[in-house]
């Protein structure tokens, strides 16, 4: 009797899990399917799910209208570049907070986190004016700097929690073995923290890839990443849903694929600090 109950319950829970997963995935699936429809099919009522004339015309038009590859390469350069530089700053910062904390370290960590709580729009005007005067508008360096500073608190916090999991006596053993601070970080700390660093970087890259507010406001053409690419498909006349779907699919495909292949790492990284 108990066995049968458990099987029944398991079946119900599994079905529920699949339903929830489908609901969460549905917007992405719908976007993907819509990108292969004609504009008429895209706005058809009742909505057409799978049975319509599949076409690739939207993808061709999107590529003809704007250079997808340039936007994509900007996204890659900005997401990866800004966060690699961020990592170079965050690793020593997190080291000092984890292994050589002072009286004010906790306050510093809280203050850094608090900067993420402020609405970005509050500083849009001053940043814009600064960028204008420093000739940083629509430049990779400029927007890269903003993305770096946006993610730095996250990078430092996440690395700080990973570093605190590392037994201090292994680092002390390295010191006794004659390692300088740089060698200690390079040869002992970093290799041991690789899973944590990898998942921190993945998360930071995903956040930078999706960052829309600053990329839309501070770039126009040269430094514009894929967020601007998608935004360019919203016209005063209304949305061209099929083309917009094609543009969106092209914009999220790279990061979706990256996330799929690194999901184990991501999950491990995000839950690592939770269990002692």
């Amino acid at each position, binding site marked *: 009797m108990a066995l049968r109950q458990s099987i029944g319950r398991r079946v119900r829970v599994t079905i529920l899990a699949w339903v929830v997963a489908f609901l969460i995935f549905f917007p992405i699936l719908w976007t993907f399917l819509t990108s292969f429809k004609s504009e008429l099919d895209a706005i058809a009522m009742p909505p057409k799910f799978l049975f319509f004339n599949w076409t690739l015309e939207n993808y061709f038009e999107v590529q003809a209208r704007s250079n997808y590859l340039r936007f994509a390469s900007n996204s890659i350069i900005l997401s990866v570049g800004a966060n690699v530089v961020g990592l170079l700053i965050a690793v020593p910062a997190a080291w000092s907070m984890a292994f050589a904390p002072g009286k004010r370290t906790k306050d510093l960590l809280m203050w850094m986190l608090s900067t993420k709580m402020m609405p970005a729009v509050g500083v849009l005007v001053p940043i814009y004016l600064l960028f204008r005067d420093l000739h940083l508008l629509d430049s990779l360096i400029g927007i890269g700097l903003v993305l770096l500073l946006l993610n730095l608190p996250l990078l430092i916090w996440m690395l700080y929690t990973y570093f605190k999991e590392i037994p201090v006596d292994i680092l002390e*053993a390295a010191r006794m073995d004659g390692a300088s601070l740089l060698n200690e970080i390079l040869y002992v700390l970093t290799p041991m923290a690789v899973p944590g660093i990898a998942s921190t970087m993945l998360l930071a890259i995903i956040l930078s890839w999706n960052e829309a507010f600053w990329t839309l406001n501070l770039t126009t053409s040269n430094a514009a990443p894929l967020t601007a690419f998608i935004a360019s498909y919203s016209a005063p006349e209304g949305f061209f849903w099929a083309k917009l779907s094609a543009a969106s699919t092209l914009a999220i495909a790279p990061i979706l694929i990256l996330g799929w292949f690194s999901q184990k790492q991501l999950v491990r990284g995000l839950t690592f600090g939770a269990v002692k």
Partner: protein
Amino acid sequence: MGSIQLKSVEKAFGAVKVINGVDLNVENGEFAVFVGPSGCGKSTLLRLVAGLEDVTAGQVLIDGRDMTNVGPAQRGLAMVFQSYALYPHMSVRGNIAFALKMAGQKADVIDQKVRKAAATLNLTDYLDRKPRQLSGGQRQRVAIGRAIVREPKAFLFDEPLSNLDAALRVQMRVEIGELHNALATTMIYVTHDQVEAMTMADKIVVLDRGSVAQVGSPLELYNRPNGLFVAGFIGSPTMNLIKGASAAKRGAMTIGIRPEHTDISTSAGEWPAKVRLAEHLGSDTFVHAEAGGIGPLTLRLEGEAALKPGQDIFVTPREAHLHRFDKDGRRIA
């Protein structure tokens, strides 16, 4: 050369004073053991010698040179940690070679030294394994190998055997002792286990709440403890400490007698007592008895003793081995 001197060394963590003015000399080639109960400051003192903590006051001298403000990497010492602290991402070879790599030595020299250390410690077959693939005893050997290969002025051991099972602990104790004889290098060894202290040390430093209670050879501490703390700490089972009339008639506030320095009789003796429990170890029998007006007594008899709980006995201390302590707990000569 590897003599170590501590001059009026103090250490405080914020307002909490952990080490109170310690003066100590460890001669070149000596095996010194820091022993004491948990929280007495023995590990802290070792870390001050190593340079892993900074002193609040006082000086640390190595071979007569002031190393107080010198970092751990430059002191020329090697440390074996309680948790072994092996680098988990490096093989045994990598772990042992790391210090030599940091010193910038040539690859062939490193290889030769690593092989030699591995051979000394029976690790040759494990050189390519990672620490997680080793047993506790093997990891301990790698930690020691990592220390040996540096040819340091002195070795520092921080309770290295406390994570091992009893049999392995005895074996490693002997191996470390043999290592000391072979290398003739100064060793400072921290333990809370006074059996390790007694069996391994040339000199024992007993620490009590951040201060040195007594320094001396194992037998000196055993036979002539300078106070109640050392008397009660050194020796297992602990010394019987008796106050009251028996002490007063011998001109002391407290007298002490070791369990093996008593005579037991079923007919006559100074202290009548009742047996509570007899522990039969085969080689010895430990008898726990309750003496009226005296308190609990632990007695040690060689071999097998046919004493049963509830039995009445008489205990007489051997006067030649009696220890006397004054009202401040200090030894009366």
